[in-house]
């Protein structure tokens, strides 16, 4: 397998806060790579660095053999790297279909408006929003808006899809549907890089998982190994002997 995304030593500092520090990893073609970590670990910042919303202070990002370290988000999309937002951002004044058409028009293939409409209808069918195509985007439920985020990104015909907490806020039925969707996306040949807090889901879906804590990468391994990694356990639950320490000091 070849690496689709090669991240080498990237960092981002906001004033005195090191949001992401010297993070490196590779994402293989056809892989689902999970990204987990406690709140504030720098997961979304890492996504923002990869798709060009922020520029990395150090290091380099190679996507599909092209250096995208200094590329802007719209350039990155044309190369085939699309993303969703953790806090959904539908284009509210437009219909569901128009939202997805934007994704297809300005995506990797830079489709004409007519072709983009056809692509958009296909993608809506795939994510299960076809019946809502002509509704205003603002009328969708949260689950619907999350699907819309995925649909817009898919319409760009990406090689790599970044999913930022697409399961957060969904009920168990909706989660199960979204998991099936993510699997089908991977099976169609699109690699996936996903941030997720729903542990059961990410453990099931991911081929490998990268763990961040306080901006640093503390683990990168298959799910089974990650859950047994002492550093990961400390990051999530604190030190196992913390109770003894607290008692001792009292």
């Amino acid at each position, binding site marked *: 397998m070849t690496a689709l995304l090669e991240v080498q030593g990237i960092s981002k500092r906001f004033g005195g806060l090191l949001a992401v520090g010297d993070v490196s990893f590779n994402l293989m073609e056809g892989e689902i790579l999970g990204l987990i970590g406690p709140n504030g670990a720098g997961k979304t910042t890492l996504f923002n660095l990869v*798709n060009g*919303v922020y520029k990395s202070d150090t290091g380099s990002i190679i996507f599909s053999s092209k250096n995208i370290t200094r590329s*802007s*988000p*719209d350039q990155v*999309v*044309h190369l085939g790297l699309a*993303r969703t*937002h953790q806090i959904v*951002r*539908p*284009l*509210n*004044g*437009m219909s569901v279909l*128009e939202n997805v*058409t*934007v*994704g297809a*028009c*300005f*995506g990797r293939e830079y489709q*004409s*408006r007519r072709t*983009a409409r056809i692509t958009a209808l296909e993608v809506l069918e795939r994510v299960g929003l076809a019946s809502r195509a002509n509704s205003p985007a603002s009328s969708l439920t949260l689950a619907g808006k999350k699907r819309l985020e995925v649909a*817009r990104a898919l319409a*760009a015909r990406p090689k790599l899809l970044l999913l930022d907490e697409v399961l957060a806020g969904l009920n168990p039925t909706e989660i199960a549907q979204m998991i099936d969707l993510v699997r089908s996306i991977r099976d169609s040949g699109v690699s996936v890089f996903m941030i997720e807090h729903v542990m059961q889901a990410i453990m099931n879906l991911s081929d490998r998982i990268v763990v961040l804590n306080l901006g640093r990468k503390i683990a990168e391994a298959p799910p089974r190994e990650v859950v047994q990694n002492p550093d990961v356990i400390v990051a999530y639950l604190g030190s196992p002997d913390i109770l003894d320490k607290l008692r001792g000091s009292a």
Partner: protein
Amino acid sequence: MILRRPLLWLILLLAALFAWLPLHGNNVSLREDLILVALAIILTSNLNLMIGYTGYVNFGHIVFYGLGGYVGVYLMTVRGWHLVPSAVTAGFAVSLMALLFGLGILRLRGAYFALATIGVLVAVQSFVSNFEPWGRSTGMYVSFESYAPLGGPRHALWTTYFLIVAVMALSLILSLGIKASKFGLGLFAIREDEDAAIVLGVNATIYKAIIYSVSAFLPAVAGTLMFFKNGTIDPSIAFEFMLSLEGIVMLMLGGQGTVAGSALGGGLYERLRSYLLTSPRLSEFHLVIAGALLLLVIRLAPGGLIGWLYRLVPRSREVIE
């Protein structure tokens, strides 16, 4: 296909009516009324490209009209050019200037952009007021010889009128064309959420600069035509801030973001304004009405008259764009 869109044929019908009505019976007074309506529609529909399509409020839109007038009148009187090439050159010159300004000020968003457009208006007006070749604050007169190539003043005024009507039709067709295009879709995405649009692949910086420049072209052409017709131009008339504000009132009244709304708002407001201005007891009162109208529209029908129509008859959306 643009030919299949009903509004295109309505626009052409409107232009034909504008051309035919005053000609029928040689009604000069009707012609003078309609030329102001046509001008209002030109300014409003081009302003709509910025406010309605892209979501950027341009308070200084009138600067394109005024500068276009200056460039055109200068080319005709000082350089001795014909009317049509002067007007087209003015259009290109002002568009180019808008492109350069746009790349600078369009990095600003929201209220800061709106403030910067007022700055552009004030700066251009001060510059022109002190620019010797353009006659400083006294402005320029259109020389009598300029009318000769068009068959004398009488004939020239009719020619100018038909050209203004043509520019009006072009403005509306341009809006219609952009609305259905991929470029237009990108603009609408920017209007709804600029950051989301960028992440979806829209090059917002370039798109905004292009639409700012495009929205300058036809108003500048109209500026040349109007000031040629008036026979004189000076900075206080060319860059009238109130007219810029009234353009926004017209757009909001008709329905921002829609082609039909910009025409309807421009037409209605201009007729109302002319009535109030010529009525001896109410002169200058039109600004009070404009303010009240804007408040009412924003409060009660944010989509303007066309938005209100959409709510009453949802299917009308497919015909009235």
